[in-house]
């Protein structure tokens, strides 16, 4: 501590060590928070088509399409260690070909401070609902679930599933027209 430089060095390193401790304490303070909350969802229009995904092959596969309602209040999830939420809507179903199919149909980023009270009506899905075969036509138990990935200032990146899900059926006929 005998010169300006050694004192400056000492102060800077001590400040940064303290900052690291604060960040860790911030993480510890939110370790036990329960990030689950309820969400209601519903499907409005559900169709299935049988077309070729030429990016993959010329074989025709089932392509589902749907619109959905979503209602949830996520404002209680935000605290000082949550920067943003990454919401995603997943369809889950069983086919003879696969024990478990999971397809992400839609997602949304909510930054802290943005409106987190969601009430969507008749939303289109964002991503193609491809099946790797013909498992969607007439499928009578496809489950929609909403999940979120919490992006914190410091700490874990948990994936949390919403409380509440919705099961729906695909029609037994392919839709030929554009939707």
């Amino acid at each position, binding site marked *: *501590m*005998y010169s300006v430089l050694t004192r400056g060095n000492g*102060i800077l390193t001590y*400040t940064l060590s303290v900052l690291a401790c*604060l960040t860790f304490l911030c993480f510890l303070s939110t370790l036990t928070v329960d990030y689950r909350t309820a969400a209601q969802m519903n499907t409005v229009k559900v169709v299935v088509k049988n077309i070729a995904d030429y990016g993959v092959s010329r074989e025709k596969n089932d392509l589902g399409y749907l619109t959905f309602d979503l209602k949830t209040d996520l404002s209680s999830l935000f605290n000082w260690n949550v920067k943003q939420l990454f919401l995603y809507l997943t369809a889950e179903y069983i086919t003879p070909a696969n024990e478990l199919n999971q397809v992400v149909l839609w997602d949304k980023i909510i930054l802290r401070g943005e409106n987190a009270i969601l009430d969507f009506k008749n939303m289109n899905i964002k991503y193609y609902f491809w099946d790797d075969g013909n498992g969607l036509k007439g499928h009578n138990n496809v489950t929609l679930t909403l999940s979120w990935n919490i992006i914190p200032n410091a700490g874990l990146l948990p994936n949390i599933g919403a409380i509440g899900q919705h099961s729906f059926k695909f029609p037994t006929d392919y839709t030929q027209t554009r939707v």
Partner: protein
Amino acid sequence: MEFFKSIPTHIDYVGQAKAEKLYRAIITLFSIVGFIWGYIVQQFSQSVYILGAGFILASILTVPPWPMYRRNPLNWQNPRNTEEKPSGKKGKK
């Protein structure tokens, strides 16, 4: 140039210990206050800003060699009279 050389830049041993204790106390205090305030308003950025304010305050108070760190000068022994030859080196010629 002589003027700049006449500015004292050293601090004594007691002053060095004092400076280190002072900046540790300031930064620790600001970090505790910042953590509590950040938790109350649920904004971690507030904690970081308060810690930054503590850093600036501690830098101002302890980095420059202020006169208050120079109040305990060492008691040097008086210089010996160098004209007088030490007794052990009489036969040096």
